[in-house]
């Protein structure tokens, strides 16, 4: 019995000791946020940790929204210093930041990510337009008979949508609504596709909510299958079922080019070059946000940003391109490298 008492005492002392030790602060950079930016930020972090005297930053994969919440929770050193985002910070998130004392935030656009619609190499490559994708995936679509009203999606096969497409059942594997990739896909493909109908587009001006409901709601009758956040899993499923298509980030297509090919969307194939020069339309910018108040308090933030914005990292031949990040145009890179250097706070418009 005495032994148990001793262990108990030792354990509680251990807890007490570490509690006091932690109040002293942190000597490594803490970063949270998007799982899309995670592979790139971790590459920079690893390089940074190996080549400088600073500790390797700790990077959590929490999703863009979760990252913003943690980032904006306060200005103390128990909150993260940087956050990854696969979309721009929302005004509401900025307001939370301000309310919690995170006054100055620097925004750095690190590059672009293409979203691809791909299928197995055992099946022919798809050639679609954004309108086709919208018609195939939306819950409600403009009536096929030409009347200006929205009806429950009647299309069952790709051939129903567009005569030039194969007569296969519509079956698309994609990310769930919590994912940034899904947000971006809906915005870049579905919105555009449905804006091609004049009367739906007109709705945007009158009732934005109704427009969003019409364009952004994905069908739930089995045509679109939520396959979870794991893109590797989608790739495996595509291989097993050559008739289905999958939606995921470009880096997964890049790594699995022997198994799958990306569909041509609006006449442009998802290749590194096409995404970089903007001719492949389904691409989105990736950001990192910096808490200016932590620069100088947590060691190494400035140096970390310098590494991130250096040519050997985010340049055309840099190691991030190797990981699948599409570099921003030269002029844009210069602009954001300057912002990173001077820590110019962002003003969201």
């Amino acid at each position, binding site marked *: 019995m005495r032994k148990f008492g001793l262990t108990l005492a030792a354990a509680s002392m251990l807890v007490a000791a570490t509690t006091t030790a932690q109040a002293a602060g942190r000597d490594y950079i803490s970063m949270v946020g998007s799982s899309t930016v995670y592979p790139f930020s971790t590459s920079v972090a690893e390089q940074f940790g190996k080549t400088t005297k600073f500790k390797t930053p700790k990077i959590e994969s929490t999703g863009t929204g979760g990252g913003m919440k943690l980032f904006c929770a306060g200005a103390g050193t128990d909150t993260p210093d940087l956050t990854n985002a696969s979309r721009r910070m929302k005004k509401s998130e900025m307001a939370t930041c301000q309310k919690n004392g995170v006054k100055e935030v620097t925004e750095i656009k690190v590059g672009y990510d293409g979203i691809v619609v791909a299928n197995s190499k055992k099946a022919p490559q798809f050639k679609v337009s954004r309108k086709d994708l919208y018609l195939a995936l939306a819950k409600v679509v403009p009536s096929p008979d030409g009347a200006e009203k929205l009806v429950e999606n009647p299309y069952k096969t790709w051939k129903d949508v567009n005569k030039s497409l194969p007569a296969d059942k519509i079956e698309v594997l994609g990310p769930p609504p919590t994912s940034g990739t899904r947000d971006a896909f809906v915005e870049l493909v579905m919105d555009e596709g449905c804006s091609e109908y004049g009367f739906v587009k007109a709705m945007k001006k009158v009732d934005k909510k109704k427009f969003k409901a019409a364009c952004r709601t994905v069908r739930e009758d089995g045509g679109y299958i939520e396959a979870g956040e794991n893109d590797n899993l989608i790739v495996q499923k595509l291989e097993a079922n050559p008739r289905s298509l999958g939606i995921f980030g470009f880096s997964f297509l890049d790594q699995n080019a022997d198994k799958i*090919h990306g569909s041509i969307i609006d006449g442009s194939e998802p290749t590194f070059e096409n995404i970089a020069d903007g001719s492949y339309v389904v691409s989105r910018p990736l950001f990192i946000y910096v808490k200016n108040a932590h620069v100088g308090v947590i060691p190494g933030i400035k140096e970390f940003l310098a590494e991130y914005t250096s040519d050997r990292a985010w340049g055309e031949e840099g190691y991030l391109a190797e990981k699948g990040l599409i570099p921003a145009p030269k002029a844009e890179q210069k602009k954001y490298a300057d912002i990173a250097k001077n820590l110019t706070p962002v003003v969201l418009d």
Partner: protein
Amino acid sequence: MSATQQSTMDRVHKGLAARYRKEKRFRLFGLSAIIMSLAFLVLLLGSIGAKGYTAFLQTEILLDIHLDAETLDVENLATANYGSLVKRAMLDNFPQVKGRRDKRELSKLVSTGASFQLQKLVMSQPELIGTVLSLWVPADDEVDMFVKGHISRELPESSRRINDKEIEWIDQLQAAGRIKKSFNATFFEAGDSREPELAGIRGATMGSFYTLLVTLLLSFPIGVAAAVYLEEFAPQNRLTDLIEVNINNLAAIPSIVFGLLGLAVFLNFMSLARSSSLVGGLVLTLMTLPTIIIAARASLKSVPPSIREAALGVGASKMQTISHHILPLALPGMLTGAIIGMARALGETAPLLMIGMVAFIVDVPSGFSDPATVLPVQIYLWADSPERAFVERTSAAIMVLLFLLLTMNATAVILRNKFERRW
């Protein structure tokens, strides 16, 4: 009388075949259930093993690196350009390669980890400067995948990550005996990395170790104390009934709830460090406590009352009875419960998600407050990485985790068989 007997026997005989058939069917159902689950288990383990065993080998390239005194000065050893030395050594193997692009591609066959390896070596043995050093350095993950046969050379060039020229170079290196596959020690010695050939599970294993140590140190004594009190001292009333019901319910609560609780209490209220193994251990303590209490109570109950009564009868106090007789007899059962609880804690990811342990951590944790991650989280993170080479590493990490779990469970069984006393 005999007529009715006859008819009963007849009825029995008539139904006998059907009853045998029924029994046979029933047994077949049971057997097929077992065979099916065994088949699934074999399939699972087989696919993990088949995918993962190659990860224990790593392709290496032999380079003759000229450590010239111009690039390497005793003063600048920490900042010298080791990358260029590695690159030059690689180019020396292929004097015919010209052009910036080709040279770049050629130097990419070697892992970026080579220059760090070289740096470490030179810094520990500065006397090597000026000599030509033959060194096996890790190959890039794509070369590794190709040499291991995960990338087929039959495919058209456009659908491989490795092009015809690179394959030609690899063939030349292989012909010259400059490529070999050797035991992948990095996998067991390194922390996480974004380069598959440099990634290892040591960071995650140490994280798991610290986390489980905190869990064990807290949950075992607390759990045993609670069980002893509830079983031996507590009066039977509504309050203790309520506590008992709650403990049983807590054991069935989904683990993510404990993560949320940990986030609210340990991080937000007590402001302990995010992502530390201390907080992870505290959360897992909450999760395993009910399991340990229940197991400990069960083993206390199984100590026969005669022991208790005999001890009390010869004049031992209640405390003496418990600590001299009951606890030693109940301890094997309690240990088994604790080990099974620990094994469950080892495989847990969901509660750790909430307290920031799902993170990219390169440095191997060296204490309870260092940021850490655990084995199952490492598996999850690798399974989500695009690089092909992480597939086999994921499976290899699963094998290591399964091995640890099996060891823990085997320890529990051995302990029980060794110390358990049957009455």
